[in-house]
């Protein structure tokens, strides 16, 4: 029997980006279990859907992505988090990784870049 696809939660305050990631060929092999518009929603959805993998924006209202990464990792230490953000300075990427993220993809991105970032994340774990 084939293994169940890994469950993906998409977190971004932009509906366009959430939909863009959800319909990307890069996530064809994953099961999208939810989409959240901020960190607070993401935590609720994480509890409800138990995702294996999260794409996480950083600049969001209510609770930003860096704070959310830390909370998700505390809730579920084995969760894989790919930060997908326009914040392209090195210090932000380093801080996100320090808080528990596993990878960083800078916006704007192509389908191929998203595919490569997800593949790299999954290959490493």
């Amino acid at each position, binding site marked *: 029997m084939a293994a169940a696809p890994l469950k993906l939660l998409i977190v971004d305050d932009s509906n366009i980006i959430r939909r863009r990631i959800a319909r990307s060929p890069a996530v064809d092999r994953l099961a999208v279990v939810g989409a959240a518009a901020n960190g607070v929603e993401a935590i609720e959805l994480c509890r409800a859907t138990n995702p294996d993998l999260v794409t996480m924006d950083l*600049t969001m209202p209510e609770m930003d992505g860096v704070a959310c990464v830390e909370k998700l990792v505390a809730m579920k230490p084995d969760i894989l988090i790919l930060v997908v953000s326009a914040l392209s*300075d090195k210090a932000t990427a380093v801080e996100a990784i320090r808080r528990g993220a596993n990878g960083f993809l800078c916006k704007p991105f192509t389908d191929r870049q998203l595919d490569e970032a997800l593949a790299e994340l999954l290959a490493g774990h």
Partner: protein
Amino acid sequence: MVTEAEIRTFVDGATHYFAIAANQPAAIGSPYLVTEGLPAVHEYSGLIGISGRRQGAVCFTAPRAMLMVLLMRMNETDTSEANMRDLIGEVANTISGNARRDFGADFVISVPDVHTTRKGETLPLPVNIRSFVIPINWRSHSAKLIVCLD
């Protein structure tokens, strides 16, 4: 005051955005300083407040027709008003966020504040700081990136 090198950062950001997100490069016009009053804007504007080491705002402003085509280029079928507003904010956020590669992490950007305006209306930009306007031409449409930093 914004330096020529800093303007180059935003020009590069706008160029990069259209090349990647729309898969079709934009032509960037000559940036100019607004010497009197506030810059004119298009129907939709995404305003990013800047704090930290610099104070001010960065704004991407575009007409509805351009946003419609941009959404279609992104394979987005939902061209509702909500998605137009979402897109204008996302473009402003992405170009401003990318500028941190050069400005550093203490170039702090807010979440986008989206405005729809009629002809002749202006945005709540800082009145004590002069704005640079970077014209962006993409397909047959014109937009602007407004950089208003101390």
